[in-house]
């Protein structure tokens, strides 16, 4: 019974959905204030979601309707499933097993994959270009992001999220693995397609990218999935690099601090072209994080 409650309400399910929307609002509000705008009211993400859910979903001609309707559901389900393995609200994860870090990371990638497939499924030219860009971006940030999150795992000697979290509680890995922290944070921006990595949905070129044909429920689910992923991503990076998450207070303080950093980065830069994004990740991101890995292994070997 308590497991079902945990899955449906707290800390999984509804809490994650509500939290995701709250984080989306915080992000939008922070960016707006940095850009000298007023920004949305606190309930705007909820209002958007309710409005979209209530709207008719138009299935364009030429698409596979099963995929068109199914992909948003899979995307959100992937993100929600990932939530049960991470220390949300600073509490122990609902489920945990050795190697759950890898499962979580792949569940998080499901959203991007679904977005790409959803774009490729429609016959819209903007969607097709957007889908190509989404998947190109996935292949560029995914490896460095993965390596950046495996750095703490290497240091902790475990690939289980709650054990890494416990280890990080005594070790601020931000200080010992600064490169990994930066790559993880920027990788999170790439994953969430936040500016300056928003080439896949650059409105001045390809309207809304892969999701151009989506309206109503499908769009709402994709947006919710994105919000949940923002929350989980912040939780992961904060728990690994910012000294672990032991209680709700720590959780909110650290994730919001990270979010502030994210909004600074978002409002600082112009959009990167997709070739520049790929170049950035493979030329700098991947190499730097690999160099840090090498250093970690060497130091670990010497210390032993």
């Amino acid at each position, binding site marked *: 019974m308590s497991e079902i409650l945990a899955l449906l309400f707290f800390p999984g399910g509804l809490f994650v959905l509500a939290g995701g929307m709250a984080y989306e609002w915080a992000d939008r509000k922070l960016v707006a204030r940095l850009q000298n705008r007023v920004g949305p009211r606190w309930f705007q993400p909820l209002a958007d979601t309710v409005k979209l859910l209530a709207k008719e979903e138009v299935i364009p001609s030429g698409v596979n309707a099963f995929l068109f309707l199914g992909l948003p559901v899979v995307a959100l389900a992937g993100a929600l499933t990932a939530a049960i393995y991470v220390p949300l609200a600073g509490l122990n994860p609902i489920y945990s097993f050795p190697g759950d870090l890898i499962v979580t990371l792949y569940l998080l990638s499901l959203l991007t994959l679904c977005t790409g497939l959803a774009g490729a499924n429609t016959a819209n030219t903007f969607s097709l270009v957007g889908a*190509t860009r989404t998947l190109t971006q996935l292949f560029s940030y995914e490896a460095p992001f993965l390596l950046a999150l495996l750095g703490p795992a290497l240091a902790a000697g475990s690939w289980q999220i709650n054990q890494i979290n416990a280890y990080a509680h005594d070790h601020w890995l931000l200080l010992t693995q600064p490169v990994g922290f930066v790559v993880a944070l920027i990788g999170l921006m790439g994953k969430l397609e936040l500016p300056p990595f928003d080439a896949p949905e650059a*409105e*001045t*070129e390809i309207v809304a990218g892969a999701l151009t044909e989506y309206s109503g429920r499908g769009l709402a689910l994709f947006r919710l999935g994105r919000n949940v992923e923002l929350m989980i991503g912040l939780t992961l990076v904060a728990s690994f690099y910012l000294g672990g998450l032991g209680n709700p207070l720590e959780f909110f303080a650290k994730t919001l601090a990270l979010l502030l950093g994210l909004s600074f980065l978002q409002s600082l*830069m112009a959009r990167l072209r997709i070739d520049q994004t790929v170049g950035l990740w493979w030329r700098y991101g991947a190499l730097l994080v690999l160099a840090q890995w090498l250093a970690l292994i060497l130091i670990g070997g010497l210390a032993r």
Partner: protein
Amino acid sequence: MTERVVMADKREKFIIPIGPQHPALKEPGHFEFTVDDEIVTDAAVRLGYVHRGIEKATESRNWIQNLYLLERICGICSHTHAMAYCLGVEKLGGVTVPPRAQAIRSLVAELERIHSHLLWLGVAAHEAGFDTLFMYSWRDRETVMDVLEGLTGNRVNYSANLLGGVKFDINGDQGDTIRRGLDFLEERTRYYLDVVTSDAVFLQRTRGIGLTTIEQAERLGLVGPTARASGVARDLRIDAPYAAYGDIPVKIVLDSAGDLEARFVVRIKELFESYRIIRHILDHLPEGELQTKMPRRIKAGETISRVEAPRGELFYFIKSNGTDTPERIKARTPTMCNMASVAVLAVGHQLADMPMILAGIDPCFSCNDRSVVIRQGEEGGAWTWERLRQYGIDFYRRQS
């Protein structure tokens, strides 16, 4: 089972349509970019969605009514349109406008240039996905909008001109307000110049993109800041001074690089030049009348008048038949001259650069849309208003 849509074009061309309705466009226009992966291999431009028939409409209004009609050709450079028209009609009518009025015309024209360039800076930054610069520059643009409102009573379509003069005077208090506004803007402009020339991420999007050599610029007939960014020394305020520009030392702003960065730099440096010109005008404002008497009928004849609009050379042809309405008025706006460069420059660039290249010429669609009917085997000559109207009705009937 739903039916798979087969790509209509079997030649394996992948065409990205931008427009007529698209987030990158603030006004309707249509661009078709043929892309190979992300590289543009061909580009086509189609214009004419906001053709309003203003030139024809001038023929059924008198000289004074036309002043207000022509001012509405463009919402951004409205003053230059009215000024070009006034200068032409005054030349035809043989009227000399008092120097104080000419100075005030130039002053409003420079204020308009400031607001137009700041607006462009924001739009161009937005096309590059740099929304922070967009928001900041548009916030600061409010300063000059307030100044214009304080002077003329309007934020756009100032109606500062009259045939034979201007409508309002500038007193000492207003001069001080303008100077305060300019001081603030000058400081901000220095910051923007620093941003567009030193922000590494932004430079990646502008440096070396949309490269136009001086030969290309001459061949394509570019005008205004777009041409000056390629090193073409062409500025009507210097080459053919009008209004009060004969008495004002204007320095030309040139850049030889020819890329998007140069277009940013030239437009921002022109802002400094405008600040200097406005201060000069305020310091040397001649005393005297604001208006002279203008005849109601303009004697028969034809003339051209050219002014340097914020986007480049604005050209007016005015023909009078001796009555109180013009025989023919023809306006050629700078966007018309620059538009061809978009289709040429697009080829070989990435799709992501297209909005930037388009914004680089500072396009203004509604002023450049016009209808030209070319048919072989038909005699030329002017259409009557009824024939034009009937043509429009038939055209849309055929479409539906």
